[in-house]
């Protein structure tokens, strides 16, 4: 263990420079985030991830945000265990009908001000599961969405760009 720890100390950091916030995400947010809410949050957002029926591909990439290469916590973004501690809901999946009520309840349990970020092609409009008897199709049909991050699944860099845009937007207008 000592060798592994020592090497981690002596070798340079693996963490990569932050990507620029996504322009289209900034544009989408400009119309949605209200000024009063922005005043109450700094460069620190607590994120509650909700899988609303994804194939688990998006979860794998959201997990990757915490590894040494992306190190999401350096931006003041962190994942929390309860919606009651969250500012942001990160929602994946085509919202299965079996998950709709749980998603609504999670949204209602999240204190204001709050933002919802829909992650992945399914979360935008149901994706390839659109039209199934078992899917609502798109997160915005169940709860209001502030930002969409595309991709199947979006790469950790795409996720980071979107979340940084949200963070910039929230703090820029304080």
């Amino acid at each position, binding site marked *: *263990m000592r*060798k*592994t*720890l020592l090497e981690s100390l002596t070798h340079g950091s*693996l963490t990569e420079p932050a990507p620029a916030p996504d322009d289209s995400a900034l544009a989408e947010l400009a119309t949605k985030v209200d000024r009063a809410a922005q005043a109450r949050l700094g460069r620190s957002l607590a994120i509650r*991830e*909700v*899988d*609303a*029926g*994804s*194939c*688990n*591909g*998006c*979860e*794998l*990439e*959201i*997990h*990757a945000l*915490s*590894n*040494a*290469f992306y190190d999401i916590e350096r931006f003041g973004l962190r*994942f929390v*265990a*309860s*919606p009651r501690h969250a500012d942001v809901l990160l929602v994946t*999946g*085509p919202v*299965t*009908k*079996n*998950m*709709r*009520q*749980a998603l609504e309840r*999670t949204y209602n349990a999240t204190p204001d001000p709050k933002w919802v970020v829909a992650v992945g092609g399914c979360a935008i409009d149901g994706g*390839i*599961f659109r*039209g*199934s*008897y*078992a*899917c609502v199709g798109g997160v915005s049909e169940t709860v209001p969405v502030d930002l969409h991050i595309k991709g*199947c*699944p979006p*790469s950790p860099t795409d996720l980071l760009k979107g979340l940084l845009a949200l963070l910039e937007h929230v703090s820029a207008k304080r």
Partner: protein
Amino acid sequence: MGIFDSIPHVNAVLSHRPWPRAVVTEAGWQAAIDRLVEGGLTLLGFWGEPAAVHMALLDGGLAEIAVVTYECTAGTFPSVASRHPPALRLERTIHDLFGLVPTAAGDLRPDLRPWLDHHAWGKSYPLSGRNASRDVQPYQFLPAEGEALHQVAVGPVHAGIIEPGHFRFTANGEHVVRLEQWLGYTHKGVESLMQGASLDAAAKLANRTSGDSAVAYAFAFARAVEAALQIEAPRQATLLRALMAELERLANHLGDIGAICNDASFALMHAQTGILRERCLRAANVAFGHRLMMDVIVPGGVTRDIAPDGVSALRALLAELRKVFPRLIELYDNTASLQDRTVTTGIVKAEYARQFGAGGYVGRASGRDFDARRALAYMPYDALSFEVPVLQAGDVNARVWIRIREVEQSVALIEQILDRLGPGGLQTALPPRIGRGPCEGMALTEAFRGDVLVWLRLDGELRVERCHLRDASWFQWPLLETAIDGNIIADFPLCNKSFNCSYSGADL
């Protein structure tokens, strides 16, 4: 036809490949269940159609597979689950989706509680083709009675970044007396979307049945189509398929080893394996243009060759793994406080692993020596050499060690494949659409968590008429209920992570 020697059957379905399928009467169906109950055969799959049910059976000793079909002329079929428990969730699913009713003689009462149907779809029996409605009743968990027992309800939204499902614990103080799972939250109706889908659309759905096993599903789907159409992918394509399958296994096992240790509060391992996992995904992205390698495997072959710099990216990955991974094994092996959590925790009895036909590390950590790559020797594994690790202890520790050994095997396999890659065709043309009758195919591939089964029937236009995808998790989830018995609630995350079953794959 070895398996059919002991099962009376009416007629064999000639268009079913590569293994035989035959229609049986009630006597034949019961004879098949007899063989399952006595342990001569293992249940590989159990699925429905609007007016029939099918069971896929494995004779492990002979590595022989067969499918028996019972035609439900009265909308009923003799219950398998009331005699053979591994069939239970699949039987409840058949009832939920097709409205077919399992029946049993004497004192046996089939469990007719819904499984996937949470009464939220706006219709009952969605694949039955009928408009029947089902009584809406609150879900009945199994009772547990005794002094000082209390219940803990967890989910569907969990504390971590994981898929949704409900766990109902009954505990006596810290100790779990009973765990009952209730899943189905991620049910997306994959089988209904498959009906009438083109091969392209269906392959995309197969990739997204369980995202962590995208390659394994695409591989199984492609092979099932190829079996049905009696074509073979070119050699180069099969090598690339196996290359992706082993990369997927590596990435998942590395992620799991770290995540299990993290659930025992050993974050150092999580950080280190997280780096290795990320390196795998980046190498996959360089080689195949997608971190999870989705949509590269298609019926007939693969859509692209490995990128020119892919080989060197993969060789660099292997060199890094060879350097770092042995040190991490040593770290796991020499940290007594970590072993204190994993050794003798969450034991799966060998008897259950055999009865349920548990695949992957869950089965192999409990003495079940089965790996589809070796048992069925599908291309290109027939020409590659590898070992299948098997342990007997059945605890969290054994499931970690199986993964460690499989990481080593996958590294060696990737090396062998890279040495064999050369120029070569990537796709075999599919036969013309005209003048064909329906045909059926079936395939198994070994995903990182166990064998994936795909069964399908294509119509004359090369569209999917019906497709069933069976994840390894179907036969592993129930064993998690047994593994947690007598353990403390605080060890549940550890046990659960050591299984890492798919929700999406089993909810369909």
